[in-house]
């Protein structure tokens, strides 16, 4: 029981962290919250399933399916940014509302193409391993590893690379960045693309871990947002910690109490934390 909580907690925390990191980056360069991340995630999950297991027509190798899915995920998020978020950057409220409506469109388009019934997806890898008497599926181990690899690469990328520094420059002061020759618009496009790719990875992982359905965008979206809120907008360290709080609370609820209450305690936690600290645990005044 405890082992299950531990491994499910670690894996879901890492997955939500990946989504949350996308949100944090998008917020830092655009000062808006993109509620479409759940939609990016869901589209990616369906595309991966279609490419890898789409019946007689398509059954690409998993590696190829993953790469194509990530590219399409980036393309979608960039199109959403170029399509309308860019026009609404000075109005965060409008971004909130429009991206929520966009998510509804995506949900129904997918339901129109693939039907509303949930579909199961094969795991990335079969089999299980036993470590110290605990048996866990290999799939979840792989997910955990991928999520952490991405997180570490991303943090290094942001702190070390030129593009990473450009992203930070734009997040601190877009005008100043412009003065030193960085085009904030290019940086935003790149960041949105990165956010789409991160969501795509999370979508593929979620799909292979459980199943896909047209309602699967809501819970990851809310949980990723809770993580960002509790962590304080724009703080990566805070996001890592709060992802684990939320992940473990969720895993505990699922295993010990009731599968359907997954997310409820995370929400309660958010409510309590926001009551006492209105900028989250690590947000600044």
């Amino acid at each position, binding site marked *: 029981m405890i082992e299950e909580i531990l491994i499910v907690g670690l894996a879901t925390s890492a997955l939500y962290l990946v989504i949350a990191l996308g949100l944090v980056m998008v917020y830092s360069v655009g000062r808006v919250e993109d509620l479409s991340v759940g939609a990016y995630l869901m589209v990616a999950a369906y595309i991966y399933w279609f490419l890898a297991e789409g019946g007689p027509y398509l059954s690409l190798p998993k590696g190829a399916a993953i790469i194509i899915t990530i590219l399409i995920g980036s393309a979608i998020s960039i199109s959403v940014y170029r399509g309308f978020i860019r026009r*609404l950057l000075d109005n965060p409220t409008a971004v909130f509302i*429009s991206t929520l*409506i966009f998510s509804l469109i995506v949900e129904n388009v997918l339901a129109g193409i693939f039907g509303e019934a949930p579909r199961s997806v094969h795991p990335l890898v079969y089999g299980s391993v036993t470590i110290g008497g605990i048996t866990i599926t290999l799939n979840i181990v792989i997910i955990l590893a991928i999520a952490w690899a991405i997180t570490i690469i991303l943090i290094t990328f942001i702190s070390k690379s030129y593009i990473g520094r450009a992203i930070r420059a734009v997040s601190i002061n877009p005008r100043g960045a412009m003065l030193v020759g960085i085009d904030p618009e290019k940086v935003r496009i790149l960041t949105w693309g990165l956010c789409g790719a991160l969501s795509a990875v999370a979508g593929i992982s979620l799909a292979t871990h459980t199943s896909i359905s047209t309602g699967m965008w*809501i819970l990851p979206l809310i949980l990723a947002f809770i993580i960002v809120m509790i962590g304080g907008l724009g703080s990566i360290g805070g996001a890592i910690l709060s992802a684990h709080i939320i992940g473990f609370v969720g895993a505990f609820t699922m295993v010990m109490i009731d599968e359907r209450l997954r997310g409820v305690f995370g929400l309660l936690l958010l409510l309590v934390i926001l009551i006492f600290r209105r900028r989250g645990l690590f947000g600044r005044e």
Partner: protein
Amino acid sequence: MGGNKPVRETALKKIALRWIIAFAVMSLLPFFVPHGWLRVLIIANFLAIFAMSWDIMSGYTGYISFGHNFLLGISAYASVLLIHHFDVPLYLSMPIGVLIAAVGGVGFVLPTLRVRGPYFTLFTLGLFILFERIMITLGPITGGTRGLFGFPTVLKGAVPNFYLTLVLVFAVAFALWYLGQTDFGRVLNAIRLDEDVVENSGLDTTRFKLLSFLMSSIAAGIGAVFFIHYLGALCPRSVFAVFLLLNIIIASVIGGMGTIIGPFMGAYIITIILEGLRAVAPGPWRIATYAAIGLIIFILRPRGIFFEIQRLFRRRR
């Protein structure tokens, strides 16, 4: 936008006349439209009440709530559960439902008043999802996902129900519109523009927000209890659906946030779009097309249709 200055006495009479004409025209509808359409209009009226009640809070103050279903849900569940478990008569359970919405709305929102922007919106969305889950989990009491049915309705038949909802929607619309025209509405509008300036003008913004929440909760509660006792069946999907939340928001934004009349018109417009699409696009495609239309209108005309109509009239003069 209701003009730049508050409406003075003389203008008020002229506007009151417009309201009466609008009401009279709409009350003639049952003589011209088929009964099938009346049921559609009844739903449009409910949607209009929900959208306007959302507007007096979120549209005016800019505190965007994604948790309006929470208010609808607690009042609907309160009334139905009282009837189902305690045999409370309808005429008592409905006002109690509204009261619960008011108390619950203000009580839960009280701590969130300190929270601004995205934090507030997420908080309200959290509240809504939280309650949906709880209602589903409390199966033995609430009927779980299947819900409860077989409780009394207020009236029977399309025509009486149409008139009932018409009176309701006009009462709510007029009351909220009037509030929006007073200095109270002006202050809510100012809170959206710059909350610090309002506070710096010696106005207690917390109290204004609280009052607007209270009014929003009461209007939403009234809509919800009549809605649920029109349907005669209650399940989580009838009040807690994300689709309903989106309808409320799309109606408000394409009609024009912070105008009350805009969301009223918006509710009718989206109902017509949704019904019109029924023949063209089946199932999920219908909703996808409708949401896409809503999104395009919102992106191109963010201030809404009512604002554009006003501008058109002003230019002509």
